[in-house]
């Protein structure tokens, strides 16, 4: 059991005073970010990323930096549940399904119960996903060491086709935003020949569009504008949390073990195959409603209806780090931002990470175990504090969040042009959200664009322009085949539905 030994070594790295302090800081910041409208996991991490530049230069600093950033992510995952249950405002897209039963519970005065159930099942989901990461990622990484450019390109292809096949948004809108992301990634210097592309003589565009700016604009400013439409005041339920409620709820939770297992499986699967936490939470809510004996009561305030989406969302959010670490292909926008962080710190995500940066990888995995335990403790004890943040009027909090976003965008490259771009992306995010253009494929395409293009062109060079290279052996062939299957899945499912309707 090499993994166990490596993991123990990871714990030894993580358990220093500095790293544990960073873990707490990350979780608390993350929950605050998750609670605030307009700040979420992806753009929260993006804004704080520049703060880690100097931290990462110290010896062992990259591990500390990733602990801070990943704990912000866990915190944001926890924080989303607070606003969904108490205020009926999903702080994060993956908490939308939690509002269905969480808010009715809060209205009935059972907010404490709902919150405990949400946090505990988040914890369970994350734990399952971390265990999966611990044992599966070394295998995947070992496997991926053999990959050449055609294999890598087919993995990228699979990632992007999965978005088209699995997202709830219209397929051509997904395709359009995804390709826009690739186009934005292509701006600047061509990675292979060094030629300038799509810059039209502008010096600002020489370095291309940074995905961090896009993330801050799309998710931050866009979200603020959307929240504004709902008006300026939040009305929320009061949460009474004490040990008695927590223990009472914990006694009740083992009843839902089957729902937990199902949701964890759905979550892990959706996280690894880039579907992401949001569809995972909806899917798992739907599955739980279908299989539960109280299925028809879902939506009126069932604890089981909180357990299912929260478990899946957290499992997916955590599992999204597996392909990020092992293949360099993030499964969610936040994982993409973390990947960007790794690149900036000078680490090359992908299979070699498991060989060359053992301390970093296992430190991160160990911190996932500890971070989620810390997170559970923090949120269970501090809910009223975090809920109080949302009682700050919007006319105060909104400009402060915009200021934070602007500072975050500026610090990426010390450029005011980037701040303007952030506003442009903000308006785009607002319109895209309202018209169901998905944002995640756009962000992922900006992050992966250059590398997908390089691997495609290298593969083409190897094969002298022969496309059959993507079917040249069983591995790359099955990856490409699966990708094409997912790409045409919307069409296939339409045909199947037609056939079924006829017979």
């Amino acid at each position, binding site marked *: 059991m090499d993994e166990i030994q490596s993991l123990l070594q990871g714990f030894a790295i993580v358990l220093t005073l500095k790293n544990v302090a960073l873990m707490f800081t990350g979780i608390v910041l993350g929950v605050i970010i998750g609670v605030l409208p307009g700040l979420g996991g992806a753009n929260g991490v993006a804004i704080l990323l520049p703060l880690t530049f100097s931290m990462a230069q110290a010896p062992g600093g990259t591990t500390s930096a990733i602990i801070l950033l990943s704990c912000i992510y866990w915190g944001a995952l926890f924080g989303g549940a607070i606003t969904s249950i108490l205020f009926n405002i999903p702080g994060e897209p993956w908490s939308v399904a939690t509002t269905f039963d969480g808010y009715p519970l809060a209205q009935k005065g059972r907010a404490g119960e709902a919150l405990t159930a949400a946090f505990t099942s988040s914890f369970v989901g994350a734990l399952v996903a971390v265990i999966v990461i611990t044992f599966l990622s070394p295998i995947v990484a070992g496997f991926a060491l053999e990959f050449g450019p055609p294999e890598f390109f087919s993995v990228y292809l699979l990632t992007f086709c999965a978005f088209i096949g699995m997202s709830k948004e219209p397929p*051509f809108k997904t395709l359009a935003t995804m390709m826009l992301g690739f186009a934005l990634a292509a701006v600047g210097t061509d990675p292979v020949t060094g030629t300038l592309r799509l810059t*039209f003589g502008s010096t600002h565009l020489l370095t291309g569009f940074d995905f961090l700016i896009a993330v801050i604009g799309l998710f931050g400013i866009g979200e603020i504008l959307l929240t504004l439409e709902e008006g300026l005041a939040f009305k929320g339920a009061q949460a009474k949390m004490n040990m008695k409620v927590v223990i009472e709820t914990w006694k009740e939770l083992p009843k839902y073990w089957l729902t937990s297992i199902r949701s964890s499986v759905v979550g892990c699967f959706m996280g690894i195959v880039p579907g992401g936490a949001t569809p995972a939470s909806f899917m798992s809510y739907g599955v739980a409603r279908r299989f539960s004996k109280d299925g028809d009561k879902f939506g009126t305030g069932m604890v089981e209806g909180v357990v299912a989406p929260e478990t899946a969302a957290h499992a997916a959010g955590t599992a999204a780090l597996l392909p990020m670490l092992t293949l360099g292909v993030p499964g969610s926008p936040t994982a993409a931002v973390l990947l960007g962080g790794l690149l900036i710190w000078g680490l090359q995500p992908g299979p070699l990470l498991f060989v060359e940066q053992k301390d970093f990888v296992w430190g991160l995995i160990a911190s996932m175990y500890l971070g989620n335990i810390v997170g559970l403790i923090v949120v269970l004890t501090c809910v009223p504090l975090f809920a109080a943040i949302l009682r700050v009027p919007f006319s105060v909090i909104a400009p402060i969040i915009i200021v934070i976003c602007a500072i975050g965008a500026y610090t990426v490259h010390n450029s005011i042009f980037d701040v303007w771009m952030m506003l442009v992306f903000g308006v785009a995010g607002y319109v895209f959200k309202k018209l169901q253009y998905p944002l995640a494929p756009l962000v992922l395409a900006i992050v992966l664009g250059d590398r997908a293009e390089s691997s495609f062109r290298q593969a083409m060079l190897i094969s002298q322009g022969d496309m059959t290279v993507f079917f040249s052996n069983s591995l790359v062939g099955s990856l490409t085949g699966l990708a094409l299957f997912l790409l045409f899945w919307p069409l296939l499912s339409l045909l199947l539905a037609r056939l079924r309707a006829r017979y």
Partner: protein
Amino acid sequence: MSESGGGKPAFRVRAAEAVVAAVFFALGAIVIFDSARLGFGWREDGPQPGYFPFYIGAIICVSALINFGLALAVAGEKNGVFVEAGQLKLVLAVLVPSAVYVGLIGWIGIYVASAAFVAFFMRWLGKYVWWKVAAVSIGNSVVFFLIFEVWFKIPLPKGPLEAVLRLN
């Protein structure tokens, strides 16, 4: 997007969909145009720089056309309100000052601009009394100054006020 608000619609879904699809088409066309300039074929040493973007641009244009077609097909019940006039006013009430704010950053520095921006919001939308406005807006900028300039040593844009106070 609920109709229950009952506000006057500023834009309907069909118009918004069509405009967004048209913008996508234009962007795709720009990409194709520049790729054609760079060359999207093959040379003896492999694909030219425009090779990959050309196809990206082509896919954008094709999917934009399809989305445009689908947008025109939106009718009746589905052609609901994209944004109500009241909502649009609120959104613009944030967006326009934000743009002014970003314009000010390069001029008077991020700290003064941020204080002015927060103060403007609190006074205009929140109708707070002046001393609260001053406390929050200035306090906010001071906290950010401490975090970025003092603790993390990340310089942000500064203006004449910082020059006078010798904080540069």
